[in-house]
């Protein structure tokens, strides 16, 4: 068949589009108002915004009493997410290669272990981790929570990288070894460039999960100096007597926009990883 397979003409797509559109309405409304409410005031009892205002965004230039500076928090979040990405990419690109390609002892066992841990609900370990971090003095530090978060996401990273390495043709490596390169050089110079798109996808994914992570920093690093955006926003919502959704949403938009930008540009990469099974 020369022409591409088309959707069948036997079933109209109009009813399904209408149906799903209806179901998607609550989500669309929530996201639309997330943005609308940050730049407008709405009178009580009304759904239509009545006036334009920028006052909800004042958190950007005024530090709230008892709260850390927003830019410090943003910097913390960025450091947190970047470090996690760096650790996961480095460690899992090496481990994934070993598991995919090298004859190492207990390879099968290690693979099974990674597999189990990948499905294992790691957040249940948070109590033990909390106590361990207090013992070794990494409680309330970014380093501690970075290491924990990276370790928890590692099995998924290793598993994905192993899968990506599996798709690289063996011939490339065989040619490399025959040409006299060591396995490390083969990995570094020949194999790694092949999986660049995969590294990109995993890197993005790690950055996004790091950027969004809430419960680990909340429990392991709640201090003002090391606060990340999720904890900052949560504390804002929890302790405020005067519920000001406009401000909450402005902080939320400030927090979510980088995520949405990355998502729009790299949707395809991310779909693959999210489809492959993640926690949540």
């Amino acid at each position, binding site marked *: 068949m020369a*022409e591409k397979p088309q959707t069948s003409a036997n079933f109209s797509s109009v009813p399904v589009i209408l149906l799903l559109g209806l179901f998607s309405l609550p989500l669309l409304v929530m996201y639309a108002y997330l943005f609308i409410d940050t730049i407008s005031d709405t009178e009580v009892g009304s759904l239509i915004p009545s006036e334009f205002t920028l006052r909800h965004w004042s958190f950007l230039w005024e530090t709230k009493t008892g709260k850390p500076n927003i830019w410090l928090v943003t910097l913390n979040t960025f450091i947190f997410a970047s470090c996690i990405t760096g650790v996961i990419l480095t460690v899992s690109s090496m481990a994934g290669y070993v598991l995919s390609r090298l004859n190492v002892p207990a390879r099968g066992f290690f693979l099974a272990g990674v597999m189990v841990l990948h499905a294992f609900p790691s957040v249940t370990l948070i109590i033990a981790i909390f106590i361990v971090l207090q013992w070794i003095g990494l409680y309330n530090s970014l380093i501690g929570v970075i290491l924990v978060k990276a370790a928890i996401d590692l099995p998924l990273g290793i598993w994905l990288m192993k899968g990506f390495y599996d798709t690289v043709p063996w011939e490339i490596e065989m040619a490399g070894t025959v040409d006299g390169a060591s396995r490390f050089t083969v990995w570094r110079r020949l194999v790694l460039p092949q999986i660049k798109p995969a590294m990109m996808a995993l890197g993005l994914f790690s950055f996004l999960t790091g950027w969004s992570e809430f419960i680990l920093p909340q429990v392991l690093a709640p201090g003002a100096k090391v606060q990340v955006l999720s904890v900052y926003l949560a504390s804002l919502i929890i302790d405020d007597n005067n519920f000001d959704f406009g401000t909450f949403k402005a902080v939320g938009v400030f927090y979510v926009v980088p995520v949405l930008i990355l998502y729009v540009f790299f949707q395809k990469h991310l779909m693959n990883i999210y489809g492959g099974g993640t926690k949540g």
Partner: protein
Amino acid sequence: MRILLDKFSKSFGSTKVIEDMDLEVGSGEMLALLGPSGCGKSTTLFAVCGIHRPTAGRILFGDRDVTNLPSQERNVGVVFQSYALYPHMTVEENIGFPLMVKRVAAADIKKQVADIAALVHIEDLLGRRPAQLSGGQQQRVALARALIRRPDVLLLDEPLANLDAKLRLEMRSEIRRLQKETGITAILVTHDQVEAMSMCDRIAIMKSGEIVQIATPSQMYNDPRTSFVASFLGNPPISLLKGKAEQGAFVLGENGLRLPLAALSGIPDGTALSLGVRPEHFGTAGGVPVEGRVVFAETQGRENLYDVVLPDGSVLRSIQPVRDDVKPGDSVRWNLDSASTFVFAEDGQRL
């Protein structure tokens, strides 16, 4: 049941695949849609079975206009190239599926499946799953499924493409037998001219979304309307020589071969032409002597095939009963049966 395509057009987006096609398949007839890939034959088949709807024109089964009917209401049986057997169902469930979705009683389905299975000789495979069947058996199951609800029309999409050479021969006659026994109107889509010629009553040969010629296999072979048809049919294929008209004769190059032909009377001198010569019409028999040098020889067992280069560089192919006195490099002087040649104008039309 007669099938009629009336000014049928189909485009995907802005790509026009078929425009204003007319085609009639007589009741009980088996017609081949033959053409190279991309010619629109599958598109036509998909429109007939209703998976796609025509962009314009009508499709009639008998006197019933089915143009806008969904597949479910057309009563057609289709054998797909990949057979499309449902992997999670047994053979029996596969064959019974068209009846099951019509909510026929289970006992009834069982009986009808048994009957049709006997017809296609797979009675003892009913409990198996498609993955446990050979290619030929899968083919028979697909046929049984297409035939079980006595469709008005049977459509076959490259049904033999996935079989090995021996099975292909067997299924060729098997499908033809079933079609004749059931008296069903059938359309066979294929790119294989041997399949089309051996199985069908008539062939519609297609090129770029148009039907170039419709005829019985022998008519089409002996009386092709264009050089495309002539070169598509026949194995080994026809040789086409480029030359021009000169005083009612076909002339090849400077001082080359000169072939007076009746078809060329009234054609102005110097008109560019091509001459089609089938391999069996160039050899030891025939009237016009042609000299040349053998550049290629191939034995096919019963026959030998030779490529002969003429002094001007064009090549004539010859098929002859086995002989071992000619080797590549030899100069030969063989005869050409000028009455069996075809002359085509530059645009490919037969003169």
